[in-house]
């Protein structure tokens, strides 16, 4: 069902459904299907029932917001007071944060009902959620396919409707790519508009919390509820107070089509679906303009250099002393720390920490890190120039349709190519909405991105909603998942 939040909220306000009944219905669906989906890694159904009772009181008092009483799932790297937050890593096993992330606190104050924490790639490092210490979630549309990553569990939960919406985090595309794989909407807002306070850091200059939802309207409702300046996050910025969505005059919109996003590495079926979406805008009267972003080819490498460098610093805090697990060790403190980190981190996380340590080490910092920062600055400037002549950019959200779980890749560098379409918006800190724009011959979703200039989040969302309404695309859950629900 599209527009889930508005519909459920109306039913709650009209007393056709109580918050407790709604929560019980979601708990029942999640309990039946999660063994198959593996979307939730920590369920908190007892707390959810209490939260639903509190939400019902708010509704009865006429103090409800659109999110009051609506069940939500939150990615396992967003701190939730009293509920485990492990980043799907052995090193944080058993960690229960004593405080909540600002984004979750805002939802909690609205009366949102937390059902549980969702599966993800360990510390958000991956594009298929397969690096999770809990095993990968599956794609509810086809159980042999990946739900994407790193917010794979958040996307799977929304696609299977075992959460009305969810929160994910997007560093290099981790909200947008899983949304594209599961046929739902994912939104990465302008960097800084949602507080990162309480989001476990991977690469701080890219990390951004974002909503995953069944429709653009739902994503905008959640975004409007959690955005805003927060003094606990020094990179947080203010955003306009007006609601994000508006009716765009499509005839006055210029849609930029960056040709590099349609290069050889992008599957033909993906290109065809996104080009058809661009034709829809053209038929509606939008001006279509071919643009070029020559630095596209260097963006991915620059992103991995900077993000690994930041990860090597951010993950230095996991040493067996302050958080989570501690390895048994007869040696000294240094030995204990090395053993804890080696045992606690998975292979991909260890690889990225080492790569980051390497590119920041003496003799190589100038060769890699500083140059990557240069690429980032130039790419941001190039995108700013492009947005002087275009209102939005439309491009694929991922180079491929959902791939099979367990796909063998020749190398790490090849696996990193999954982020090629999403990384440019992350590098420049601009808003980007991922939404389904078509399907492959086998009926699997193809996602496109609508990107806009910094702080034009409302424009990106509104232009995306225009397409969503006109195209009206929906997907069927796999028979196996449907049977469980």
């Amino acid at each position, binding site marked *: 069902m599209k527009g889930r939040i508005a519909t459920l909220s109306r039913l709650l306000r009209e007393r056709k459904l109580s918050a407790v009944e709604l929560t019980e219905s979601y708990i029942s669906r999640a309990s039946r299907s999660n063994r198959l989906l593996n979307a939730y890694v920590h369920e908190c159904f007892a707390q959810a029932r209490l939260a639903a009772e509190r939400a019902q009181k708010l509704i009865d008092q006429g103090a409800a917001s659109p999110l009051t009483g609506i069940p939500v799932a939150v990615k396992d790297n967003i701190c939730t007071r009293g509920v485990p937050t492990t980043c799907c890593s052995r090193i944080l096993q058993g960690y229960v944060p004593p405080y909540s992330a600002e984004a979750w606190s805002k939802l909690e104050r609205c009366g949102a009902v937390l059902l549980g924490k969702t599966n993800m790639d360990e510390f958000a490092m991956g594009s298929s959620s397969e690096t999770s210490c809990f095993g990968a979630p599956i794609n509810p549309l086809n159980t042999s396919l990946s739900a994407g990553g790193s917010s794979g569990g958040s996307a799977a939960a929304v696609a299977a409707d075992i959460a009305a919406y969810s929160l994910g985090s997007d560093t290099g595309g981790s909200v947008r790519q899983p949304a594209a794989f599961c046929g739902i909407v994912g939104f990465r807002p302008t960097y800084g508009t949602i507080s990162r306070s309480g989001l476990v850091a991977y690469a701080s200059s890219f990390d951004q919390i974002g909503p995953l939802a069944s429709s653009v309207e739902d994503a905008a409702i959640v975004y409007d509820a959690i955005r805003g300046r927060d003094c606990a996050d020094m*990179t947080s910025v203010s955003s306009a107070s007006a609601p994000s969505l508006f009716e765009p005059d499509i005839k006055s919109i210029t849609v930029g089509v960056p040709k590099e996003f349609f290069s050889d590495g992008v599957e033909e079926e993906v290109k065809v679906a996104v080009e058809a979406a661009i034709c829809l805008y053209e038929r509606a009267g939008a001006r279509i303009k071919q643009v070029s972003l020559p630095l596209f080819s260097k963006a991915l490498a620059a992103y991995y250099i900077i993000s690994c460098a930041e990860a090597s610093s951010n993950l230095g805090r996991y040493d067996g002393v302050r958080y989570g697990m501690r390895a048994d060790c007869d040696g000294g403190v240094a030995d204990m720390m090395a053993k804890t980190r080696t045992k606690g981190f998975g292979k991909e996380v260890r690889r990225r920490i080492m790569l980051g340590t390497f590119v920041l080490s003496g003799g190589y910092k100038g060769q890699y890190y500083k140059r990557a920062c240069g690429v980032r600055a130039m790419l*941001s400037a190039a995108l700013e120039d492009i947005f002087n002549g275009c209102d939005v950019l439309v491009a694929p959200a991922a180079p491929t349709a959902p791939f099979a779980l367990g796909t063998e890749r020749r190398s790490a*560098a090849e696996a990193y190519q999954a982020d090629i379409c999403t990384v440019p918006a992350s590098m420049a800190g601009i808003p980007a909405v991922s939404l389904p724009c078509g399907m492959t011959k086998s009926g699997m979703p193809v996602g496109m991105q609508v990107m806009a200039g910094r702080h034009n989040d409302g424009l990106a969302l509104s232009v995306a909603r225009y397409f969503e309404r006109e195209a009206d695309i929906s997907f069927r859950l796999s028979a196996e998942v449907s049977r469980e629900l």
Partner: protein
Amino acid sequence: MKVSYEQIRDIARLARLELSQKEVPLLAAEFEELLGFFDCVSGIECGISADECRNSVQMSSLREDEPLASLKEEELPGGDRRRGGMYRVGRVVK
């Protein structure tokens, strides 16, 4: 770029990670491939610092420093035990 086994061991030590003998050659080969992939940024000469980069993408919104009135000495715990520009505190080492 050629990466030696010694470099891999050094990086692991800096990153506070342990490596088995078997992992060292595998990681060296992986690093060579990934650094080859990273080398595409090597042609970039824009003379920009990391701080300038951060500012250029407007990621920092640090406020200006605002000096505020601080606590008066007599309000500090133990302020009444000031002797000759020092504070008398409880014995720590016995």
